[in-house]
Each structure stands twice: as structure tokens, then as C-alpha cells.
């Protein structure tokens, strides 16, 4: 029972962190049809900025998050403007190469500037230690990560289902040309969603730093995981991504607990099985 509960909370926390980081990737891939392997690099950049802000500048956790999210978006703007825009509509191989090249660059620069060591983001007092739930106690930062996931999912649901921006976004995901001809300024929709995607990645990188530690090879190490989330969930589908994150989080965490000697064997086996059965994602619509 003890194990079931701790596996459950760990899986939930891990899944939610995955969700916060990958949801932006899913939306932009559904929107712009770009295979982006560099998304994890933005989560990593966010983590590095937050670490720098707290450790070196001595800022508070909340301020560091804000600074990191804004900083990462600012870094992403020229990258989007000068690199990504050239590969919209390009063959998939081109997109893979460009974004993997960018990932290599970010890793190399991070390694050079910050060194190869793990970077920590000290948690504020309230998030340290366990929280007593009455029948069990759970690490506060995991609870925080779960809460962040729920808040992000809820906020995105409101944004996409209840606002006029959401209507435009959904129209553009469905059929960009049609949306444009109906007067949706797709360029603005693209720019805003890219910024939100990058911002969420940075936010997820910070919130999840205890589970996915910040180091130079972060961008490469979790690249696959984020892509798998989008592929399994179906590009552009928020419920799909949520389901994918929870399923993958559960498989990965359970595997680590029960058969640690197999490493990630069962995780990848499950990925292959799921993708083979649902080539367009669990809740994907495109066929």
C-alpha cells in the first residue's frame, strides 16, 4: 500500500511536469506542423536562468520563475524569427536537422558557460519537507508540481475553450489557410502560441527541476520523452497530451520502482506498442 501510494504520487508529479513542459510543444506542432526537437532546450534554459537568479543573484523563488519565463521567451524570439520560420512547411528531415542542430548548440553553450555540473534551484521554505495529508505525507514540491500541472491544464482549457483567442487558435490548428481567409491573423496566433509554448516549457523546467535535474545534456536526455508525449497524445490535442503524460509517467515510474534493473526497457517497449496501435496518437484526429 505504501509503495502503491508513493508510486502513484511520483507518477502523478512526473506526469504533470511532463505535461507542463510538453503541452506547448504539442500545440505548436499541431499548429505549425513543425517537428521541433529543441523544445527541451527551452525548458533547460528556463532552469538555468532560475538557478542563476536564485543562487547568484539571490532572488526569491517566485521572482526567479517570472524572470526565467520572460527571459526564455526573449531568447526564443530571435530563434523563432530567424531559424524556425525558415523551416515551416519544409520536409520533415530538414526540420529534424535544424532543431537538433539548435539543441546541440544550446547544450554546447550551456556546458561552456555553466559547466557540466548539476544546477539546483533552491526551493522556498514552504515547498521543502513533507506535507501531511492526514493518512500519508508527501513531499511538498511534488504536490506543488501536481498543482502546477492542474492549474496549467485548467488555464489552457479556459484559454482555448472560452476565449476568442482560443477560437482562433482552434480554427488555425484545424485549417490555417481557411482560418486566414476568414480573417484570423494567423501570424499573431502563431507568435502568441509560440511564446506561450516556450514560456510553459521554461516554467515546467523550473517546477520539475527536482525530478528532471538541470544539466547541459537535459535537452538531449528528455528530447525523446517530450516528443513521445506529443506523438502518443496526438499533436494539438490537450486532453491527448494530458492522458499521454499520465500514462507515460505511470509506466516510467512503475518501471523504476518495480524493475529498476531493466532501466527504461519497459518505457520504450510501451512507447513502441502505443505508437504502433495509435499511429495518430491516443486522441489524435488526423488520419
Amino acid at each position, binding site marked *: 500500500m505504501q509503495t502503491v501510494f508513493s508510486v502513484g504520487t511520483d507518477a502523478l508529479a512526473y506526469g504533470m511536469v511532463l505535461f507542463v513542459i510538453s503541452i506547448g510543444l504539442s500545440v505548436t506542432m499541431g499548429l505549425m506542423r513543425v517537428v521541433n526537437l529543441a523544445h527541451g532546450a527551452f525548458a533547460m534554459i528556463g532552469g538555468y536562468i532560475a538557478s542563476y537568479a536564485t543562487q547568484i543573484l539571490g532572488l526569491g523563488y517566485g521572482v526567479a520563475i517570472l524572470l526565467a519565463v520572460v527571459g526564455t521567451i526573449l531568447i526564443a524570439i530571435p530563434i523563432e524569427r530567424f531559424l524556425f520560420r525558415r523551416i515551416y512547411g519544409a520536409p520533415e528531415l530538414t526540420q529534424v536537422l535544424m532543431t537538433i542542430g539548435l539543441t546541440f548548440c544550446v547544450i554546447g553553450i550551456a556546458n561552456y558557460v555553466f559547466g557540466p555540473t548539476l544546477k539546483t534551484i533552491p526551493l522556498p521554505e514552504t515547498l521543502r519537507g513533507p506535507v501531511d495529508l492526514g493518512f500519508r505525507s508527501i513531499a511538498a514540491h511534488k504536490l506543488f508540481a501536481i498543482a502546477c500541472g492542474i492549474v496549467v491544464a485548467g488555464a489552457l482549457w479556459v484559454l482555448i475553450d472560452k476565449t476568442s483567442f482560443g477560437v482562433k487558435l482552434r480554427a488555425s490548428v484545424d485549417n490555417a489557410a481557411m482560418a486566414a481567409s476568414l480573417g484570423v491573423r494567423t501570424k499573431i496566433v502563431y507568435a502568441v502560441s509560440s511564446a506561450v509554448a516556450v514560456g510553459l516549457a521554461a516554467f515546467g523546467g523550473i517546477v520539475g527541476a527536482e525530478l528532471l535535474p538541470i544539466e547541459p545534456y537535459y535537452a538531449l536526455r528528455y528530447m525523446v520523452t517530450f*516528443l513521445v508525449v506529443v506523438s502518443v497524445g496526438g499533436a494539438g490535442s490537450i486532453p491527448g497530451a494530458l492522458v499521454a503524460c499520465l500514462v507515460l509517467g505511470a509506466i516510467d515510474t512503475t518501471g523504476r520502482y518495480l524493475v529498476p534493473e531493466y532501466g527504461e526497457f519497459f518505457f520504450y517497449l510501451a*512507447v513502441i506498442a502505443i*505508437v504502433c496501435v495509435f499511429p495518430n496518437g491516443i486522441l489524435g484526429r488526423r488520419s
Partner: protein
Amino acid sequence: MAIQRAIAAEGKVDAGPNWLLRDLMGLAAVLAVAGIGYLLFPNNLALLTRITAIALLVLSLDLVTGYCGIATLGHAALFGSGAYAAGIAAVHFDITDPFAMAAVGAVGGAAAGLLAGAIMLRGRGLAQLVLSIAIVYLFHETANKASNWTGGSDGLAGISPDPVFGIFGFDLWGRTAYVFGIAILAVVFVLLRLLVRSPFGMLCRGIREDPVRVSAMGASVNGTLLRMYAISGAVAGLGGALNAISTQVVGLDSLSFTTSAEALVMLVVGGTGSLFGALVGTLTFMWFEDFVSAINPFHWLTIIGALLIAVVLFAPNGLYGTATQLLHRVWNKR
């Protein structure tokens, strides 16, 4: 041939430039570069042999990515399978003849190719890419876990191949290994030149451009691709076996995502869809890597990233493709 020439002379149809001459020139170029390498770097034959083994991996990747249009980030699964097949044959089954080991490697690679191909062809686009990555990780984790057979993370050591033809032992300087490797590469190169020009090669190029059209001609798209995957696996497996024979150890890195991604980078830097491009890319990348990473391994990753972006933006046909384009332009101006 006579009829072909007769038709060509009539000005009607001919089958393209004189391929045989090109093949021989290509073979001569490969052997010449190999010979120059031997003379210039007699103390670095181990690196040259490794380049030869990786060249086989990149050629094999070109068959799938360049000629069939399948983007994959998991091709090292085939290379590593060949390496482990040859290594396990030597260590556990006492098959130590280098040619037999190479054959076992080719068969192991082909089997891995069939398995990987059967899985990859289930998806398209992003799903296919994700499958390719998951496959190489799955192979990696399997090899790690099956340490009784593979030595796990310590690597599979204790491979001691017999002398070639019972005469030329694998010496400390790696001369035998180098010549053995270049011989394999030369034979594979010639066979692949024939392959890509054959009806089967033409069918694959057709699939790359439009699979729907190919199936409307009555050809089986997935059957053809699976076959190409098996052939590609055999070539990659030979590369892996060569690596096992020359270094006498097989490590988990031969089955890694990083090796897969690097192979793709080499192919793209050289130019996809051309066997020469694959060779040029491998040579350039490996030489450059050896040169730069000796100075600073961190800069290496930044530079290779920047190089990739530059190739994508400014030379999408790769070094070889761009060079031939320029040559054509100069030639036509004369």
C-alpha cells in the same frame, strides 16, 4: 549494351551517362583516399578504421533516408546489432574467423533491420521518428540488461579474431584491420552502386517521391521498404562487425541514440541520396571531430550544431551535392 547505344545514337532514349566508368572512378577515388590516409597517418590507423566502419553505417543510413525518404534517428540499432552479433559469435561460440564474423554481423544487422523496419513502417511522420528513437533505446536497454551475453555497460571484451586467411594477424598498429576494413568498404560500395541503379533502387527512389504513385503501378510499397531495411541492416551490421573486429571490444555506445544522430548529421553534411555524399560526410565529420574535440569537447557540440544549421540553411544538398552543382554550373558555362 549494343542496343542501348544504338537507341542512344538514334537520339531517342538512353539510360544515362556511362555508369561503369563512374563506378570505376568512384572505386579508384575510395582506394586512393584510403591509400593516402595510410601514408599520411600511419600512427592513427585505428581512427581510420573506425571511420571506415562508421562510413558503412552512414552508407546504410543513406539507403533508407536518402533513397527511400525515411527520416530515422535510430539507425545505430542496426550497426550495434551487427557489432554484438559478431562479438557474441566470437566470445560465446568461438567463431573467430574475421570473414565469418563479418558474415554473422551482416546477418545480425539484417535481422535487426527487418525488425526495426517492420516497426517503423507502422507510423508516418512524427510517429515514425519517435518509433525510430524508441527502437534504438530499446536495443540499448536490452543489451545493457542482457549482460551475460553482452557484458552490459562494461562492454563485450575478449574478442580475438583469427588472422585473415590464416596469415595476416590483427596487429597492434591496426594495419590488418585497416586493409580488411577498406576491402569490405570497397566491395560494399561497388555493390551498392549497382543496387541504387538497379530496378529495385529505382523503385525505392520512386517511393521516396510518391508512394501512392508506386502502389498505383502495382508495386508493394511496404514490401519494398522492408527489403531495403534488411539490405541496409546488412551493410550497417558489416560496419558494426568491422568495429568489433578492429577494436576487439563492443560497447553500448554502438547502440546509442547519439551514434544514430551523428550518423544522420554525417549523411546530411555530405549530402543525402548519393553514396559519395555519405562517404564525404563521414570523412569530413570524423576528421573534424577528431581535430576539434582534441582542443575542447564542449566546443565540438556547439560547432556541430552550428554546422548543421548552416548546412540546412545554405547547403541543403550537403557538401558533395553542392560541390557537384557548382561543378555542373561551371561545366555548362564553358
